[in-house]
């Protein structure tokens, strides 16, 4: 019988092992860099093309929070690594080393959450630095207060962390790494923006709009989620989706045969 303390120790060991594993895998670095690059690219494009009025706090918040939507890419990150366990059959040494599958899955998802949190922090901070530098070079003042900046960074990081857990759960459920990654990429890049425009009731609940809402942003004109959820509600929706997927992944993993 596994005690709670034993279970927690197992989670801790798997968490440490999986974090090391991510550090030792080049594609993890590429995906994290891609997420940060996406955020920076969004800021640069919006500043260059839309000529954001720096004195307008709302516009600046919308700009920075939009870059936080890149946290949705961490869903892809989670999928690549969780489904990759089945593609490369590294799931076999994992369950041989730790046959108690629920603590093992918990540790695995916790590692993705930590990686997502760090990536989100770096990505959102990089966007802020670029925006600050751009506006300074233009001679515009940076009108956001410290509280707003912290909210944007924290919201982006939490969105990314939860996205990684969501992706890890989906990857565990689907197992087919390529199919799952393509499906999620198509959803994030094509279906989500189109649905957000076409179905107003959906717009606030899409992953990108939830990311913007979590970053304390106001919606960009014509952008996804023109009526954003309040951030606590956005956190509940995003977190709840991740928890539901994680529970489903746990239920399936517990009885799954590994080959």
């Amino acid at each position, binding site marked *: 019988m596994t005690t709670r303390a034993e279970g927690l120790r197992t989670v801790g060991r798997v968490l440490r092992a999986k974090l*090391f*594993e991510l550090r*030792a895998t080049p594609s993890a670095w590429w995906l994290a860099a891609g997420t940060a690059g996406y955020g920076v690219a969004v800021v640069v494009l919006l500043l260059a093309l839309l000529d954001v009025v720096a004195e307008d706090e709302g516009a600046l918040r919308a700009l920075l929070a939009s870059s936080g939507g890149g946290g949705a890419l961490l869903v892809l990150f989670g999928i690549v690594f969780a489904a990759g366990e089945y593609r490369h059959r*590294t799931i*076999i*040494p994992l369950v*041989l*080393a730790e*046959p108690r599958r629920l603590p093992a899955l918990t540790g695995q998802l916790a590692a993705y959450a930590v990686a997502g949190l760090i990536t989100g922090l770096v990505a959102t901070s990089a966007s802020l630095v670029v925006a600050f530098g751009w506006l300074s070079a233009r001679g515009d003042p940076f009108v956001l207060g410290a509280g707003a900046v912290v909210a944007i960074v924290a919201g982006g990081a939490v969105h990314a962390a939860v996205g990684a857990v969501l992706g890890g759960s989906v990857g565990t459920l689907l197992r087919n790494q390529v199919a799952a990654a393509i499906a999620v990429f198509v959803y994030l890049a094509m279906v989500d923006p189109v649905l957000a425009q076409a179905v107003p009731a959906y717009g606030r609940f899409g992953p990108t709009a939830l990311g913007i809402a979590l970053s304390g942003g106001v919606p960009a004109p014509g952008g996804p989620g023109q009526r954003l959820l309040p951030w606590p509600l956005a956190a509940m929706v995003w977190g709840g989706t991740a928890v539901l997927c994680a529970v489903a992944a746990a239920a399936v993993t517990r009885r799954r*045969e590994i080959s």
Partner: protein
Amino acid sequence: MIEVHGLTKRYGPVVAVHDLEFSARPERVTALLGPNGAGKTTTLRILLGLARPDAGTATIAGHRYAELHAPLRTVGALVEGDTFHPARSGRAHLQVLATIGGLSDDRVDEVLRVVGLGAAADRRAGTYSQGMRRRLGLAGALLGDPRVLIADEPQGGLDPQGMRWLRRLLRSFADGGRTVLLSSHLLGEVAQIADDVVFIDRGRLVGCGALTDIVGTGDPAHAGRRLEEEFLRRTAGLAGEDRL
């Protein structure tokens, strides 16, 4: 001690393993022999907790795999095929396993030396030859210095030197009071290393016993041929053309 009692496993209408009974004892190398599709891999997967039986039990030291307190310290497992990420180094693969299993990093260096991968430890495992991949798998199996070794086709991809190295490794493992259970198609190799053999066909036990009782104690050079004859005799009614 490995014990299998009344083990049955079905995949839909196919009975992969049927009421299988056998044991593998300490200080002995036990070989599980059978044609393709006989149920060898399924049996080993059930023993390792990777598949669930429909009936019966498969235990190691009296416990199902999932119940083992420190599985890597109890059982070393080598499964068929690669089980590592090709972009990670052999050392990183083992360090991950060691961390999950609560083992020290020193053990990683030790097993890398034992399997002869010390010089290639920091190379990406995807660049390894077939033999090196098998050695990495064995390093993972030996990581916890286990009392029991379960290996599915351990000779796969090894060259003649590698085969000889593996024979010595398994022999010294068993001579140290430990239990070895392996499956193999290479009857000549099995004849050189096994103490006991278990024949299965279509999931059923068709014979078992000490190798010397089956092939005699004559010229060891001919033991492989005699084992092959015995293998074919025991599986003849079910093997051959009707399998093709």
